[in-house]
């Protein structure tokens, strides 16, 4: 089974603040890391390859520095990975990101299974995987909780669908997104890291490598959505501060609860 795992480099912390006066993002030299949800997808891929035989490679899109996350996946056990990077990809929304990734996947070969994490911690949309599946004309299942078996060209799995857990089979090739917390991702191997040759582990693909050479399909130009403005979250206008010592504050809270008909 040939497996590809899509991963993303995300900021190490979400503590990005915006200056309410200037509207400028306060940059604070936050280190980057691999999107934590992707670790479950990589672990799922490696386990499947061990169980049913196969290979695992990874793919990411981002600036050239994003090779760091590919190297991490190789240290976990992937054979190698690809970074899709080009200035033309800049400013992509969900639609253009998914399209770029689908073009990149086509250049990486044919896969039986494409795995994604549930969502990223920076974009939080949980939508890119399903759009990639659409562009590759593959069936997709999200929120996968477990993979029970792989036989007769099908994957047998369980997935969470709101208040139900659904058992289903999916014909390969397909794309699945796994839920968080479904396994315990292995740690990167120090041994692999020491013997790793970067040029073997990571390769870069740019716009020039893709089949679709229309620049209007990528980056900002290929995006359907447009950010009109960004602004800090509003603060509550009506605010009451309860004065006094603990007993007086408790008393006011009690009256508030009576007032709100909560008692």
């Amino acid at each position: 089974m040939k497996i590809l795992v899509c991963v993303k480099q995300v900021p190490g912390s979400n503590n990005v603040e915006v200056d309410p006066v200037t509207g400028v993002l306060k940059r604070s030299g936050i280190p980057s890391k691999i999107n934590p949800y992707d670790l479950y997808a990589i672990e799922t891929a490696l386990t499947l390859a061990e169980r049913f035989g196969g290979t695992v490679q990874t793919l990411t899109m981002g600036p050239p520095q994003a090779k760091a996350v590919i190297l991490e996946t190789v240290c976990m056990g992937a054979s190698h990975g690809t970074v899709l990077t080009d200035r033309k990809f800049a400013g992509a929304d969900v639609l253009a990101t998914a399209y770029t990734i689908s073009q990149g996947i086509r250049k990486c070969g044919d896969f039986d299974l494409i795995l994604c994490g549930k969502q990223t911690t920076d974009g939080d949309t949980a939508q890119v995987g399903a759009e990639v599946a659409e562009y590759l004309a593959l069936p997709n299942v999200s929120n996968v909780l477990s993979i029970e078996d792989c036989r007769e060209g099908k994957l047998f799995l369980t997935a969470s669908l709101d208040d139900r857990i659904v058992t289903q089979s999916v014909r390969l090739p397909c794309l699945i997104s796994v839920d968080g917390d479904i396994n315990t991702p292995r740690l990167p191997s120090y041994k692999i890291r020491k013997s790793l040759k970067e040029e073997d582990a990571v390769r870069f693909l740019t716009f020039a490598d893709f089949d679709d050479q229309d620049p209007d399909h990528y980056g900002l130009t290929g995006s359907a959505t447009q950010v009109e403005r960004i602004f800090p979250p509003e603060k509550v206008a009506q605010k009451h501060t309860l004065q006094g010592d603990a007993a007086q504050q408790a008393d006011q809270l009690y009256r508030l609860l009576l007032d709100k008909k909560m008692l």
Partner: protein
Amino acid sequence: MGKLVIRRDLVTPDKANALVDICPFGAICYENGILDISSGCKMCKMCVRKGQGLVEFHEETKSIDKNLWRGICVYADCTGGKLHRVTFELCGKAKELACVTGHPVYALLIGHEVSACAEQLLHYGVDKVFVYDHPAFADFRVEPYAAAFCDFIDKEKPSSILVGATNLGRQLAPRVAARCRTGLTADCTVLQMKENTDLIQIRPAFGGNIMAQIVTPNTRPQFCTVRYKVFSEPKPTDVPSGEIIPMAVTEEMCRAAVEILGSVAKPTDIDIAEADVIVAVGRGAASEAMRAMAKELADLLGGVVACTRPLVEENIMDAKRQIGLSGRTVKPKLIFALGISGAVQFAAGMKSSDCIVAVNSDPAAPIFDVAHYCVVGDVNAIVPKLIDHIKGVS
């Protein structure tokens, strides 16, 4: 849609290095005298505003005839013959949005033997309910559902489509949006309508630290997903109004590579998103005694106990009780935030609650920015007294 263009004729090393520092995403690099923007760019356009003219934004517009697209459609999220309540919330919002443009409100219902659900929707102010009813839609499978959805879009050309951000909606909406080559904005918290039928979609970005106002100016339909309990559920009308329109289902729509083998209800865990009253504890109220106190208060108010992310990460509380961006979004009538500093990730998951009471010893805690009732003081001193009051002890 436009692109960033570097004015290479204006580049000097000083200006270039200043520009590299301006970019919040480190996407601008200056190496060997060449200034370039990498794919780390998020199009915040900070470089355009503050870059001393080095970067220009060139707008390109491919305009479409927006008059050809009419109607605001709510995807009726239906599993097991039951509508998810987010559907009603979205119907209420769609009705509000429609007032601006005078567009009709539609509901799209896909399923099997769902006539009762269709009837139910007529009590929520929709003008037309389009129904795809077929055994192939008995269980949710993304391919047949997406096929029916696209058939509806082809035939009715709705201008905006609102989808509940359920597991189902999050799978279906992106597939359909990609097929239509149109925009999709996830987890909107505010929706407004422009007179030109552009849907203003506002959502938290960067972990909720920033709000982003997003539009889909040059494609139709405009897709967005909205989480459950972000909008208020309207009261159902006594008299049904609107019509139910059955839609033809073709063989081709029913094809799928997915086969459903069975399903079981999830074990009925506590669902903090359903609670009317929540007592949430944070690191400042994490001790066993304080958690017991929170539980007692919650029990007295008929509510549940919830928590912040650190308590889950430290295995003190179950992940199902976590409020915030990586946990649940809640909108109770009343929420107590005890010993919670109020990180934006947490606030994003609870700030639309009707009444927020925060108790924290630190007067500068950000939780007081979102709270309606601010109590600066010791949780350990105040809450037991409140409990005594409620029990009628004092």
